[in-house]
């Protein structure tokens, strides 16, 4: 069990996470949803240990979590120029010999002998994901893992995450696309004003759509409609 208790993170004077508490059971895929700037990535950074915690604690199976417990797939993935996909994955294999580079690359259809900088955005995402998988850590944090993936890869990743959860991993992922989360997650946590505003089970996923849209969406659409009809309305 990954327990996050009363977490508080600030950037300067701005509090991003305000007393956030969350329990993540292993064996389930947990999704995190919230509007831009609500602190999704900050929460993942905090669990990984690269931001300073002002207050609160994060424990894995009763002990304080360490970065070596966590595999973290970030939104933007950095590799190293002029190395191929195969060379990148072999770095992970050197430390975890059981990691089968060839077989995994077949699963995600990666052209391993091409330079990584020539990969498409989706391919780079898949390669970075395989690297995280190669680390073989009990907790997986995935920030926007579906970005740039084609339909088949999207589906495949969703199924893969379920398999990983069944094998005992604790998985927390974020996405701006609600459909990607509802398809892959067992629980979805809604983040609002720096805290968890609610946790939803599959039967309740239908409610999320309405909750995600702010009360002002209608007004914004009205304004956009007016602008398109009469561009001078902008003035």
């Amino acid at each position, binding site marked *: 069990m990954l327990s996050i208790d009363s977490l508080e993170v600030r950037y300067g004077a701005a509090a991003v996470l305000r007393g956030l508490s969350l329990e993540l059971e292993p064996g389930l895929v947990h999704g995190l949803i919230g509007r831009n700037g609500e602190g999704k990535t900050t929460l993942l950074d905090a669990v990984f*240990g*690269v931001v300073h915690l002002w207050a609160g604690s994060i424990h894995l199976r009763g002990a304080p979590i*360490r*970065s*070596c*417990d966590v595999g*973290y797939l*970030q939104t*933007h*993935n*950095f*590799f*190293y*120029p*002029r*190395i*191929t996909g195969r*060379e*990148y994955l*072999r*770095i*992970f*294999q*050197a*430390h975890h010999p059981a990691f089968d580079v060839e077989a995994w690359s077949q699963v995600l259809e990666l052209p391993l*002998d*091409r*330079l990584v900088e*020539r990969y498409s955005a989706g391919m780079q995402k898949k390669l*970075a994901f395989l*690297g*995280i998988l*190669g*680390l073989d850590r009990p907790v997986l944090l995935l920030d926007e893992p579906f970005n740039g993936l084609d339909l088949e890869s999207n589906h495949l990743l969703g199924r893969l995450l379920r398999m990983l959860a069944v094998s005992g991993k604790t998985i927390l992922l974020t996405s701006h696309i609600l459909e990607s989360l509802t398809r892959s997650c067992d629980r979805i946590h809604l983040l609002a004003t720096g805290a968890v505003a609610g946790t939803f089970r599959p039967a309740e996923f239908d409610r999320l759509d309405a909750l995600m849209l702010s009360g002002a969406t209608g007004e914004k659409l009205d304004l956009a409609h007016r602008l398109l009809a009469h561009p001078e309305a902008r003035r």
Partner: protein
Amino acid sequence: MTIPLLLLRLRIIRRIAAELPRTEPFAAVVILAMLGVAQWRLFAWTGDAKGRWFVAACSVAVLLSVHAARRDERFLRIAGVAHRRLFAAEYLLLCLPFSVPLLFSAGPQLAAVGPGSALLLSLLPAGLVPAFAAQRAQRRSPVPLPLPATAFEWLAGFRRSALALCILYLAAALLSQHLTVLVAVLVLVVLTPAAFYRDGEGITLVEVFALSPAAFLRHKIGRSVVLLWGLAAPVAALFALRHPALWYIPLAVLVPGSVVLAGAILLKYAFYREGARAGIAVPLALGAVTASLVLPPVAALLLHRLWKLSVRNLEPYLNAFDR
């Protein structure tokens, strides 16, 4: 659209000029000094006829290289900008530091070479160099290298410097009877790997080693020094064959070369930011490390300081590992 874009670019330059002294004051001073010296040299060269032609040729070469290396032609086309007009305006501004001294010393004919080239170049397709590089990279897979996967800086560095290294080895093989050539080649071969560490990797490639910051740095430095000696071995062997009495020269090059390489690695991790390339401060500081070798205690102090900085900078990423 041309004027707002041009003004936007000038605003970007002004912003950089305003921010650089705050963020990297040392680099700002060096850049300013270099620009000042360059402008002074341009004025000085226009003092004689040969120099004037040289300055005019320089203006064409600068414009040509900017035009060949630029990557924004497609974007500007898509954005509906009159890109040729924008290029012409930019190049006319760019050739001013060359044309103004020429106008005062040589008259309008030579001074018009720069603006004339600017107008001509703006009509030609831009970005041929990146287009050619991209096409070449798409065509072929890179050659696999017999190096450990975890030495990815060396894999990348070899690919980037393969041609230069081949030329150096060839020069050493063909001209090994000349001591000066052999020493120069050895120095260049030994200094080349310091440039392999200029790119930044992602956090994953740092923590995949599962080592504490100190152990991580020891591993990186130890591995790179072994590879450096392997890289220099063919030239050192030629030295031993051709000039056996001077056996100590390869050692005298390799030992300081290893220190410079260690300095390059420490500098990289002292200023490590995920995925970021080394800023201008890093090559300058590496120059300082190299220069400090004249006074070994200064070099030792500098390396010690860099070690401490690197360990502190890596701490947030690697504090979980106690090996």
